[in-house]
């Protein structure tokens, strides 16, 4: 396993023998690359559970009336699906997996600033995840509040809300510590000559994300503690009978949870900004605009949370102000989209699997983003609030956005991570099935929502049957595609052809080192002289 050209004996991080052997060598690893893979495998497992729960909902909704489960079971399942997918899959997703693996490499560092803290973050991620999954099996029944845990219902329901919220609290700490680690890493460990404006765009996105993780997550932590205190001691933060305000819960919850959407989507945009220049062999258009728009999104994204609360009884003035700010936050997102399109113009386009996923990201993100504006405007929001339209919008942004970016990232970087290449033809077929299945699953829900199909309902009127059936069939097509994609990636990682160091002719630092990288990434510290995307 040696390329034989380096002066230093090359051992990949996968073969490196540390203090511990076997599985302990992974659980006690402080190497950012091993921790990244630990995150990836655990997140993939939770994603699988979330998908199964989603499919169960799709079977239930395939026909009106009770199909396979009771209403209360359905309430539990959509709550658990939400909690797992949000707190255990999409929030850590890109930053904990690809951020951990590639942030140090992209800025020319040997590791993150606090490797042991990084390992600790994964440990508490696992503890929190076990708590969340366990909340499903308590005698009191799975939580039935939806992943938002809205008061006052969450303070009175008999289901195991306390364990589920404690799980979210613990998972939040993992997120905070990862964010802190990344901020310090970017400030302290950039290679010589790597100025902020010489950094690739994925680290830029991670930097903006890390600030949100660090600043917003404590707010939801405190909110969930308030909720638990209210349940246990009847304090009266949210109960009007005790002088509290139920809207206070929604304010506090969304002050975190709107920025949390950017924790999911900003790294996704970062990934796309890496893939597009590589597969068009062009210098990225508007480098500074893309870099700074990440910070703008993070900043303004903190101030728009009220658009989740238009119908909850907020003051008139607050509603139009939040609406205005929501339209403002769409601008930096649009800046990125235009810059990606401008980069592709006259580029030498190479339709390899990562680029296909990146293109579908842009397509789906535009649909999700523009329908978001419909929701951001107060008048139309009141029409479609709490309908399937919201479900469709959200999944277009999070699955079509963050999900497809994750698939793009794994197809882009897996040759670097494992040193082996997957099969292109199978990857393309899986992509096609996923893309078709995704749109069949979620697009009908836009229409159903407009027609008045409420979300989180176990049953529906016969008039929604057609759309629901198409959506359910789409769900199974999507799941088939996901299975094929994962199978191909696993086969590729284990038995694929040996991948060269730079299979895509990329220009950023990770392509200058062997695949898979050695323990310390670089034999000698790289010195950076130019912008990362110099193809011309």
């Amino acid at each position, binding site marked *: 396993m040696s390329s034989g050209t380096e002066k230093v004996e090359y051992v990949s991080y996968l073969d490196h023998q540390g203090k511990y052997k076997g599985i302990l060598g992974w659980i006690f690893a402080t190497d950012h690359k091993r921790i990244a893979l630990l995150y990836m495998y655990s997140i993939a497992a939770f994603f699988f559970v979330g998908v199964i729960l989603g499919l169960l909902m799709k079977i239930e909704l395939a026909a009106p009336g009770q199909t396979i489960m009771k209403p209360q079971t359905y309430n539990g399942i959509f709550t658990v699906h939400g909690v797992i997918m949000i707190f255990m899959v999409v929030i850590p997703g890109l930053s904990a997996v690809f951020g951990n693996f590639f942030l140090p490499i992209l800025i020319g560092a040997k590791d993150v600033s606090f490797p042991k803290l990084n390992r600790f973050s994964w440990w508490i991620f696992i503890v929190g995840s076990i708590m969340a999954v366990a909340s499903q099996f308590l005698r009191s029944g799975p939580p039935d509040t939806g992943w938002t845990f809205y008061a006052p219902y969450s303070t009175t329901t008999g289901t195991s809300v306390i364990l589920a919220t404690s799980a979210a609290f613990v998972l939040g700490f993992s997120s905070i510590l990862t964010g802190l680690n990344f901020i310090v890493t970017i400030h302290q460990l950039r290679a010589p000559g790597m100025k902020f404006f010489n950094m690739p765009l994925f680290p830029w996105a991670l930097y903006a994300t890390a600030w949100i993780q660090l*600043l917003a997550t404590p707010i939801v932590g405190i909110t969930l503690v308030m909720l638990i205190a209210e349940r246990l001691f009847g304090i009266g933060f949210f109960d009007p009978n005790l002088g509290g305000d139920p*809207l206070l819960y929604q*304010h506090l919850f969304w*002050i975190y949870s709107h920025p949390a959407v950017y924790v999911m989507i900003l790294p996704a945009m970062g990934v796309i900004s890496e893939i597009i220049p590589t597969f068009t062999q062009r210098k990225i258009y508007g480098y500074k605009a893309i870099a700074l728009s990440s910070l703008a999104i993070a*900043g303004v994204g*903190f*101030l728009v949370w*009220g658009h989740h609360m238009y119908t909850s*009884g*907020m*003051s*008139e*003035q*607050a509603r139009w*102000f*939040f609406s205005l700010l929501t339209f403002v936050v769409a601008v930096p997102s649009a800046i990125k989209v235009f810059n990606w399109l401008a980069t592709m113009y006259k580029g030498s386009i190479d339709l390899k699997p990562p680029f296909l996923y990146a293109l579908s990201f842009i397509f789906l993100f535009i649909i999700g983003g523009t329908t978001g504006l419909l929701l951001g405007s107060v008048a139309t929001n009141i029409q479609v609030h709490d309908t399937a339209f919201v479900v469709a919008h959200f999944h277009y942004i999070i699955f079509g956005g963050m999900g497809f970016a994750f698939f793009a990232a794994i197809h882009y970087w897996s040759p670097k991570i494992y040193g082996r290449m997957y099969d292109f033809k199978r990857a393309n077929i899986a992509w096609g099935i996923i893309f078709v299945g995704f749109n069949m699953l979620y697009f009908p829900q836009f229409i159903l929502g407009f027609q008045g199909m409420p979300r989180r309902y176990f049953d529906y009127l016969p008039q929604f049957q057609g759309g629901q059936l198409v959506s359910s069939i789409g769900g199974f097509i999507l799941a088939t595609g996901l299975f094929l994609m994962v199978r191909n990636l696993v086969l590729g990682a284990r038995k694929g052809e040996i991948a060269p160091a730079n299979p895509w002719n990329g220009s950023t630092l990770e392509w200058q080192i062997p695949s898979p990288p050695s323990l310390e990434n670089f034999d000698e510290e790289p010195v950076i002289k130019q912008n990362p995307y110099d193809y011309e």
Partner: protein
Amino acid sequence: MANNVSHTTEYRTLGKVLLFLMLCTFLTITVTGIHLGPFSVTVALLIACAKAYTVMTYFMHLKYESLLLKLLVGFVFVLFVLIILITFIDYAFR
């Protein structure tokens, strides 16, 4: 970069800061007894800000840190103020 001399002065300042913080806590408790209506939250938040400022400056050594770090903390504070203000657009007009 502390030598012995700066250490002794530092202990004295730390003592003063502690005293100031305790005074503020006392003030916060006293103020809740006075009926200020909607301004009770404002006053409580202002006192809390004064406490946070001293803690960060002296206990957390922000005073001796680089300008960049001070600016970063400053941005966070501005964000915090904006979030509070925007929340009160709801509460003030409801």
